[in-house]
């Protein structure tokens, strides 16, 4: 085999390898789409879209308040994201650019709790929510997640490099501290904010185990909770309707991805989404 042929051969192998992974990555998503148009007898037989889409939608709507649930997911993830970014940036700014008593020990606490899994707070949060009567409400879904140590950490790292002279000259000009933060510091932190926002949104969008614990009524379900309830063993499962619900639940994430693709990458790089 000549050298040129050998290179061609490796090239072909590479494309076959990538092609296989490409199909494996995409196909289940295509299958979801086609399954959402099939009825229960065809869902395992047909690999192409069928004609049962509207019937599936009717079944879905009868079983679950789908638009309300979609709104719940968007609203809860949205509010949590805005709050996490803002309060994280605010605290991160204080840790990065101010000298104050207790700064080191307080930041150490932030670092220490950053890696803790949510499961360690799951039972106590359930007890707290029950005691203060927040179960089955937006408060229970939103308030406990409004801040994360991770966002404070990431924001602090980003703000360390912000030129202190700019803050001082703003101070001399008579700008109030909060004004300086909002008008001068925050606008330069757009990409850090975007990274934290994407991570937080994805995390909250997929928040399942906690929602499973504090939510009872279908009016308050979020998308993952709704889907898990629709496939509970013991009663007839309409797979087409479940898949349609899954597709509807996927739309906001796809839209977000189309608009903020590069921030998904920087979000992935800054870490801590898995779980």
């Amino acid at each position, binding site marked *: 085999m000549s050298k040129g042929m050998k290179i061609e051969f490796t090239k072909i192998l590479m494309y076959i390898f990538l092609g296989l992974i490409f199909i494996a990555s*995409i196909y289940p998503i295509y*299958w979801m789409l086609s399954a959402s148009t099939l009825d229960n007898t065809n869902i395992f037989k047909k690999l192409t879209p069928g004609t049962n889409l509207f019937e599936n939608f009717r079944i879905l709507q009868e079983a679950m308040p789908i638009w309300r649930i979609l709104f719940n997911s968007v609203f809860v993830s949205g509010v949590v994201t805005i709050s996490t970014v803002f309060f994280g940036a605010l605290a991160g*700014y204080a840790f990065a650019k101010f000298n104050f008593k207790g700064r080191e020990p307080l930041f150490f606490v932030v670092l220490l709790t950053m890696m803790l*899994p949510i499961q360690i707070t799951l*039972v*106590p949060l359930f007890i707290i929510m029950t005691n203060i009567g927040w179960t089955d409400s937006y408060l229970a879904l939103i308030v406990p997640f409004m801040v994360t140590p991770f966002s404070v950490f990431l924001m602090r790292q980003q703000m360390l490099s912000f030129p202190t002279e700019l803050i001082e000259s703003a101070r001399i000009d008579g700008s109030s*501290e909060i004004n300086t933060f909002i008008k001068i510091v925050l606008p330069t932190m757009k990409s850090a904010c975007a990274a934290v926002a994407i991570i937080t949104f994805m995390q909250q969008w997929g928040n399942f185990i906690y929602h499973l614990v504090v939510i009872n009524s279908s009016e308050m379900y979020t998308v993952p909770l709704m889907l898990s309830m629709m496939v509970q063993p013991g009663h007839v499962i309409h797979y087409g309707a479940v898949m349609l619900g899954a597709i509807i639940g996927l739309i906001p994430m796809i839209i977000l991805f189309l608009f903020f693709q590069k921030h998904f990458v920087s979000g992935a790089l800054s870490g801590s989404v898995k779980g």
Partner: protein
Amino acid sequence: MEEAKQPRFKLNKLKLSPYIFILPFFLLFGVFMLYPIIYSLVLSFNSWTAGEMTFVGLDNYKQLFTDSLFWKSLKNTGIYLIIQVPFMLLLSTVVAVIINSNKVKFNYLFRVAFFLPALIDLVTYSIVFSLLFNESNGLINHLLGFIGIDAIPWKTDGFWAKIMIISVITWRWMGYNCVIILSGLQNISEDIYESADLDGAGIVKKFFHITLPMLKPILLFCMILSTIGTLQLFAEPLILTGGGPSNETTSVMLYLYEKAFGSFNFGLASAGAYIVTTIIAVISFLQIKFTGGGEI
């Protein structure tokens, strides 16, 4: 007087501002994280019945360590960890290296396609794969049938059920890690490869002697994230197998969830959560230590 007063006022404000800035964070963090973390520790030494706590010392921990199901769930989680994480990271690295080599066309298309699974939430993809892995009707067994392989008992055989769970986690996270690794690859300068070319190093040699060592910090980062994620595995075994057959796929988090909200044994579940957290901390520490750390 006026002039002397103003700077002092400003100084006070300067001293006070950082506290005001961190206040919202620490208020919410204190109530909904720090307090629960301590509460959980207290709970782990108590038994909980109808809102009443009774101190039981180390009983919960003892009970956990003598429960064979707890050990089984730890063992299952360990198997997922040891097989899935290295396998996935190897795959992600190989794919990233191939995409990064400028010979590949459409690499943008590949990158987006490989990242797509990471957009789908854990419950959704678990349901999809639960159908695809259906033993008698699922697509995967159909395809295997085409090439003459008998239907695989994905859900009724412990070994195959574990393979199924490992496969689906890999599907969900391969591209995600691939994107992280790609950004690490882009930081390796071409010059190093060029001088290796001059020395006559082949593809394989370059991969092991240049690419892997240069990627160490980023691979470590991926490894720690994946480890933490795997130890928290919950939705996949819950939906794909319900932990079965005969608890062969139960993860430690599924076990703890059932203890907490199936039998309302909050003390036991809290003790378990502390054990898992300790394991996470120890493993992360060891990974950093044995790989020599690295700036992230």
